[in-house]
Every structure is written in structure tokens, then in C-alpha cells.
């Protein structure tokens, strides 16, 4: 079992990825935090190392015109492609969904928009040990 970055560092990088996206949007964009709780990377029946967590933060982006969402997606996709992210999926035009992964640290980030005007950004860390070092296994 290998060391990882700490959970605190994972949370910092997740937020950094989200705010990099928001910096590309018009200044009137307003974030509402939706989900920001660490989630366990194990399961009661999982025989793998226990104790790892993933930081996953999701935000809804308010106050932007839905008619411009596609253009925002284009801008952000271009930025990711020129800043060491690999595009994992672009589901347009069928679905407004764009998903990317950082080539260095495997942090992932996605954009979503739905048919009722919702616009979301979600970023997730890989599984990490809370303190960066493997927990003692029972």
C-alpha cells in the first residue's frame, strides 16, 4: 500500500479545479455548494485496504443564461485541453456533459447542464489516505 496526498490536500486541489473553471465564466456566475463530504472508498464487503476516502465537491452555477451554456462548455474544454487535462467524455449534443481528468494527479472534473436550466460543476479526487499514509489494517 502506497502513501498518497492527504485528504486536506485532496480537498484543496478539488476546490482549485472548480475555481479554475469559475474563473473562465462571466463574473456574475454565483456558486451554490451542493455536495462536499468525503466519501469512503471502501465497502463492507470490499477486501481491499480500508480507510481511504475521496473528496468530491459539487456546485450549482447560478445566474448565467442557459442559451450560453454550450459556449461556456467550449471555453472550458479548450482550457482543460491546454492545461494538462485529458477529455474523458463530451456527450454533446445529446447531453450537456463534459468530463476531464488531470494527467498528472488523476483528479477529475465535470460540467453538466440539464433541460431545466441547471448548470453544475463537480470535481473528485482519487482515493487517498486521510493522513497520507496507509492506516493500520486489522
Amino acid at each position: 500500500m502506497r502513501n498518497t496526498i492527504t485528504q486536506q490536500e485532496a480537498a484543496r486541489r478539488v476546490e482549485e479545479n472548480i475555481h479554475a473553471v469559475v474563473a473562465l465564466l462571466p463574473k456574475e456566475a454565483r456558486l451554490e455548494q451542493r455536495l462536499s463530504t468525503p466519501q469512503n472508498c471502501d465497502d463492507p464487503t470490499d477486501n481491499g485496504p480500508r480507510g481511504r476516502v475521496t473528496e468530491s465537491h459539487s456546485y450549482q452555477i447560478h445566474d448565467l443564461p442557459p442559451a450560453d451554456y454550450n459556449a461556456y462548455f467550449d471555453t472550458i474544454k479548450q482550457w482543460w485541453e491546454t492545461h494538462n487535462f485529458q477529455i474523458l467524455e463530451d456527450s454533446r449534443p445529446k447531453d450537456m456533459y463534459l468530463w476531464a481528468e488531470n494527467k498528472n494527479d488523476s483528479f477529475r472534473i465535470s460540467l453538466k447542464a440539464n433541460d431545466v436550466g441547471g448548470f453544475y460543476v463537480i470535481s473528485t479526487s482519487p482515493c487517498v489516505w486521510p493522513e497520507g499514509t496507509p492506516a493500520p489494517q486489522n
Partner: protein
Amino acid sequence: MLGIDSSGNGRAIVAIGNPDTAANVATFVPGTGARLGTCGTDIGRSDSMVDAAKQAGSPSTASITWIGYDAPQDLVAAADEDYAQNARQDLDRFQDGLRATHQGTPSHNTVIGHSYGSTVIGHTARDMNINADDVVFVGSPGTGVSRAEDLGLPPENVHSTVAKHDVIQVTNVFKEPFDVHGPDPAGPMFGGNVFTSDPGTSSWTGYSTEAHSQYWDQENKALNNMGNIIAGKPTT
């Protein structure tokens, strides 16, 4: 907190959002190993499903983590259908209770089962005519029936998924009568709607226990699709 019982392995019924007013209400039934002491993981999954449903366009969502039964605590015990049989009445009553307390326009109710939790839902639907609009089977060892139509719901409202590398597929290698809980509901002959999951972590065998628990990882297509189903939208 809708209910808690610390006797035995413990039971817990915990809601996120307000089931009495939400337009879309999900009940999540976890599987093997579920108990009061581990409900944090399952509540986290409910939280993720509420978020996924909102992202899919649900105007208001509640999700209830229902550990309202004595779940098998290991894989040997999980071969026994008695746990599902003993849970039917409580789950059925719970679904009736959701309908009775809901205010205004009836909500769209979805019951989602993971692993043995799917077996519980299958037995309840088969035997008790479960009061739900949609049922979802995630990584299922079987649901107690051979065909979706035997669950008392329109087949298009019976949704299933299994990850390519989910070790649960090993439980469905043998055919009836050796397939204890019945065929994989995500299999080709079951009928119903099969939706996409990410393949999950692989191993030298082609299967892993990790893949059995990755369905609720953020950006897993399974989670996105569960959000779609809860919101009453089509799956991919």
C-alpha cells in the same frame, strides 16, 4: 432520522430531504454487511443520488437510506433468501407509509437496491405488490424472479445494471435451480431496462470487489443514471 434500532446488528432509516413534500422520492436498500454501524457509507450514497437527481432536473428530491431489515453480514449468509423473505413486509409497509404521508400531488417513488438489497426489493415486489413507480437493481445476485414482468411492475419501470468487472457476476454463473436468487436482472433474458455503469476496477480474474462498490463514485455512469431514474428521465 425516521427510525433507529440498536438491537442485533442494528437498523436505521435516515432521510435526506423531505419525503413528504419532494416530487421525487428514492428509497435505498443496501445489501450484505449493512447495519447501524456502517450506515454512514450508505447515507453518503443517498446524498450522492439526491445530487445526481437534481443534476438530472429533479425539482425536489428526497432519498431514504433504508436499513430496515436484518441484512446478511457475510457472503455465506447472503446465499440464504430468508433475509429477503423476512424483510418483505417491513419494506412494503414502508413504501405504503411514504404514500400515506406525502402531501399534494403523489411523488414519483423509486426503490433502489444494491447487491442483496436488490434481492429484498425483488421478493417484496413479487410477493407484496410493492407501492413504487420504479425499481432499480444495482449489482444484483438475483431478485427471486426470472423475468421483470413477474415483479408486478411494467418492465420499462424495472431498471438494472451490473459493472463489467463486478464480482457479483460470479453468483449468476450457474443456472436455475443452482442460481440461488435467480438470474441477473441485467442479463439479456430478464426483460426490463438495463442501464450503463462504468466497468469498475478489474483484476487478474476480470472481477473485483471494488467494482461492486463503485457505482456511487462521482461521474460513474451508474450514478448519473440512477439520478435520471429518480428524476423520471431516460437512462443511457
